[in-house]
């Protein structure tokens, strides 16, 4: 915990963070593009069809990373919320706010690809099975976070309240997962990286997962930069308004 502390402290200062993130962002983006391109090449030209599903298994290469990134996104938000409420880390709120839409987008992608994958496999677009339903509920939690934050005027308060909601969400998520699993276990056991997926399919899946994770991090850093710039613009405007107000009232005396 000690080294992590100093790292986050060093990043605490927004300008310091801007310089650092501007430096590493292009590398991450390039890495993401590289991994994704190579993974897609493998998926479409090299990977063998599944013995049962045939070619539709190709959807797995984007469905599984999306579901994984949906969960990673929520854990980033939970971590940032914890940092904001406990350590009062100045950038935690920015990180939580930037991660929410990206996580929600990947959750939505996981839902859509999952339902399109479900049609050939189970005959209907939407099947109320445990794993898809859990991802759907995760999507609701994301919507809740974004809606709560956007409906409060005072940004600082909105950040803290959303952090509380995120922590409540992360506490309840395993319970939801368990109850939904108990409620209906139609879905095949989750394709862990090492389990029944045969080696030739595992490498593209791994590469695609790494690629999309890098993409997530790149988007997250860029989102945080935008948020910092937006707050800077707002403080500048408020300063000008306050100075304008003072100058106006001094003008007459």
């Amino acid at each position: 915990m000690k080294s992590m502390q100093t790292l986050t402290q060093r990043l605490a200062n927004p300008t310091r963070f801007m310089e650092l993130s501007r430096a590493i962002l292009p590398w991450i983006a390039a890495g993401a593009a590289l991994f994704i391109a190579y993974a897609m090449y493998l998926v479409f030209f090299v990977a063998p069809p599944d013995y049962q599903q045939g070619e539709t298994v190709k959807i797995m290469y984007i469905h599984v990373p999306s579901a994984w990134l949906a969960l990673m996104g929520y854990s980033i938000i939970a971590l940032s919320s914890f940092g904001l409420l406990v350590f009062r880390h100045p950038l935690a709120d920015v990180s939580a706010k930037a991660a929410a839409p990206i996580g929600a987008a990947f959750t939505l992608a996981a839902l859509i690809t999952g339902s399109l994958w479900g049609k050939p496999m189970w005959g209907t677009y939407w099947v109320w099975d445990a794993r898809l339903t859990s991802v759907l509920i995760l999507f609701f939690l994301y919507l809740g976070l974004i809606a709560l934050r956007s409906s409060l005027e005072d940004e600082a308060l909105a950040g803290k309240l959303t952090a509380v909601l995120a922590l409540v969400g992360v506490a309840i998520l395993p319970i939801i997962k368990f109850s939904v699993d108990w409620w209906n276990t139609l879905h095949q056991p989750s394709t862990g990286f090492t389990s029944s997926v045969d080696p030739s399919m595992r490498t593209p899946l791994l590469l695609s997962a790494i690629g999309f994770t890098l993409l997530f991090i790149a988007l997250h850093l860029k989102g945080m930069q935008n948020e910092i710039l937006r707050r800077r613009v707002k403080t500048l405007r408020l300063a000008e308004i306050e100075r304008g107000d003072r100058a106006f009232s001094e003008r007459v005396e």
Partner: protein
Amino acid sequence: MFRADRNEKFLAALRLAGRAQQDAGGPDAFFAVAKREASQLYRRLKSRTSTAVLVNFANPLCRRPIRAGSSWVDRLFLHADNLTVERGTRTVISALSFTAKAGEALLLVGPNGAGKTTLIRTLAGFITPAAGTISLNAEFTDQDVAEACHYVGHLTGIKANLTAEQNLVFWAEYLGARESTPIEDRVHDALSHFGLSQLADYPAGLLSAGQKRRLGLARLSVAHRPIWLLDEPTVSLDAASTDLLAKLIRKHLANNGLVIAATHLPLGLEDPTYLRLGPAPSTGAAPGDTLSGGGAP
């Protein structure tokens, strides 16, 4: 409802208007005549049928917008004739009569709860008086009094999510009739008059309380209305803004406008007439003192 003969008269009016349009040139004259005919019809309807709501619905078609910029008739006046207004069970204003003439400022004075706000809201048409009438002079008789008034209450009427300029453009379009100067100029003049032009494209939510208040007052000068009803306009205004407001009021009065304000601070006006409401202070001035009284608050 339209009997044949009335129909005939209406058509005759339209034909007359058609001919009038050729010599006067331009559709405006045609609309003016058609509207005057319709408004007379509307006034007969209004007096006879009790369903004010339904008739009100036909209102927009027969009203004549107040021609802005044209030299107002300097004999514009607002006359209240033994006005009685009740709030719940309490009679707040009883048998009050007064006349306010163009170019005059009428300041309502009196203790809190004396009915200043109630009188202003009655003039603005929000409260229907228990008895008595409020009317404008002959020139605007077919006008609803409220439509000739700017009402400035305690709230600013500013939308936080719109920029300062968008707020004023909306009010100019919504309140103003067809006016000579284009909306952009009116908005820019209003913003510069109140020292807000620097913040024109900032969301109004970011502005300070004083600036929001001034933006609310700027509404007075973007839409052209002869009568200004101000309910304690100087509350939460600093000295500089009060001075600007006084300047705007003086310009409005010079332009034959009429201002009725409930205020504690004298708005720096030369010779406002005072109308005391509520129980007479120890100086013994009778309530509802007629205009000539002019006792200092």
